[in-house]
């Protein structure tokens, strides 16, 4: 497998990330990310064409540091965001994990995901699904997320989405 890390370790990181999101342990979730991480959920431009440049086209979410995600975590827990109060219950599933090592030594990990959402406000449920590409970098003994790109395949948004829905 790739350098010092096994595919099991890579998968474990992705599963742990999903678990922390669903448990609303979002401070620990943030710790999985490097401070200068890139977090990107691009919008679709055409039926089968994603926006490929976040500076000339829209994204659902785009940050070039962890600060934007920290804002979102704060807001979701603030009690002053209508959409996040009450928070929905979610269940993320991550599968089809494939990993390749880049020349830089970082790992490019592709996977498929879905997230079941039970909206406690409307008493309705829906699912979002798509693909993840994680770029993982060694940070001492651990792997950290340097970049996460989330492709949302069903982009007809039910109500709203936030970091815990994708």
């Amino acid at each position: 497998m790739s350098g010092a890390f096994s595919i099991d370790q890579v998968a474990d990181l992705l599963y742990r990330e999903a678990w922390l999101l669903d448990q609303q342990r979002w401070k620990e979730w943030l710790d999985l990310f490097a401070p200068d991480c890139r977090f990107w959920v691009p919008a679709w431009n055409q039926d089968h064409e994603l926006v490929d440049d976040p500076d000339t086209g829209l994204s659902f979410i785009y940050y070039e540091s962890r600060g934007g995600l920290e804002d979102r975590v704060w807001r979701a827990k603030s009690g002053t965001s209508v959409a996040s109060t009450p928070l929905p219950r979610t269940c993320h599933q991550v599968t089809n994990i494939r990993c390749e090592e880049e020349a830089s030594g970082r790992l490019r990990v592709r996977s498929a995901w879905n997230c079941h959402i039970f909206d406690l406000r409307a008493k309705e449920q829906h699912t979002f699904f798509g693909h993840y590409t994680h770029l993982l970098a060694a940070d001492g003994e651990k792997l950290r997320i340097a970049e996460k790109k989330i492709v949302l395949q069903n982009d007809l948004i039910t109500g709203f989405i936030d970091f815990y829905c994708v």
Partner: protein
Amino acid sequence: MDALARLRGLIIDDPQGKDFRVHRDVFRDPDVFDWEMRHIFEATWVFLGLESQVPSAHDYMTTFIGRHPVVVSRDDKGELHCFINSCRHRGALVCHRAFGNRKYHVCQYHGWAYDSSGRNVHLKDREQAGYPPSFDKEDHDLVKVRKFAGYRGFLFASLAADVPSLEEHLGEARWFLDLIADQGEEGVECVPGRIVFRYRANWKMQLENAVDPYHFTSTHASYIQVLERRQKSAAADVPTSIYTNIRNAGIRRGSFAFARGHAAMWGDTPSPQARALFPSYESLVARHGEVRARWMFHTRNLSLFPNMQIAENASLQLRVMRPLSAGATEMAIWCIGPKGEAAEARRQRIRQYEDFFNPSGLATPDDVANYEDCQSGLAAWSIAWQQGHVRGFEASVAGADRFADEIGLQPERSLIGPVELGDETAFHPAYREWLRLIEAGLREDESRAHAAARGAT
């Protein structure tokens, strides 16, 4: 009770008695929704999209006029057409994508073919068909909408022919479209990226919200708090916001009520230096003069009845509303900006848009959750009336105020006050037009029914 009597019981509009009330059935009654489709969305001008979304020959986009799926298509001569997206034969859609480019639209079912102007150019196996001569006399082209026109690159259509010209329909509200179109020397364009969301509530929740300054500090409390957190933190890569410092800015909010259901809300911008247009200020003054350039820097929300809104505040957003039922609405939303905008300004515009306006942003989700909460609460059928639509009544004046005078605008009513005034009189034009159109439609239904009854006896 007959339909007209029921309708008249849904809005109380009594300026002398200083009363304005909206019945809750307006938001929840499926019959009302049917009236809205037939007598508003399928009977007046509705917004379709921007001309710049179909720039080249044979480009098309699909959308809806009420319940009718329609296509806006540019033909080989560059002329735009709007026709109903339904093959004349069995009714199948001839265009399936939101946007595309096709010289011919060939129905996938039996192969009837139309060109990019909607003209029927081929009817498969016509020679062998054994059609009687009467068939050949029929028009087999895709059905054109009755009225189709553009204003400064904004495209509108009407399924009904008996509407005034588009310019007359838009009236004084055109000034606000001009102020958008004039931001770029070659007009404005949609930023790539098509975002659509649905919410489980009536479309008029959104209709009101665009010109509702009252909800901001309560609905968007978490957004304002995030901005305050950002001011204290040193995080570099978080979007700037024109709302930074909103609590201390002492800003004013005004509104203008126009004929035919349109309204605009405007205000001082707490942090104008955060606007993507800010580096262009001098050139905007040079092109459009100090007053119009200054107005470009005011926050401005324009609501064009029934289905289009432009919000220029946190960024610049175009919204197109598509009612699905009394309790469900689809919103197609776009970030728009001047054509040829500098790369850094465009990047800033996009980041600010995502931060506030997206259904994945820090503000719109809270609006949507409130709309859905309202719809849930409106299930209490025994409560007849909404309250508070008279908010701002005593501050509203007939005709122009000094701000309207400054820009040569002639609204039906004007209002100015501190942001806390939270005006709701800007909703009145929409409900007046709503009532006028449905009433006209129901009267026509009634006279048709009488004529039919007379014919039968």
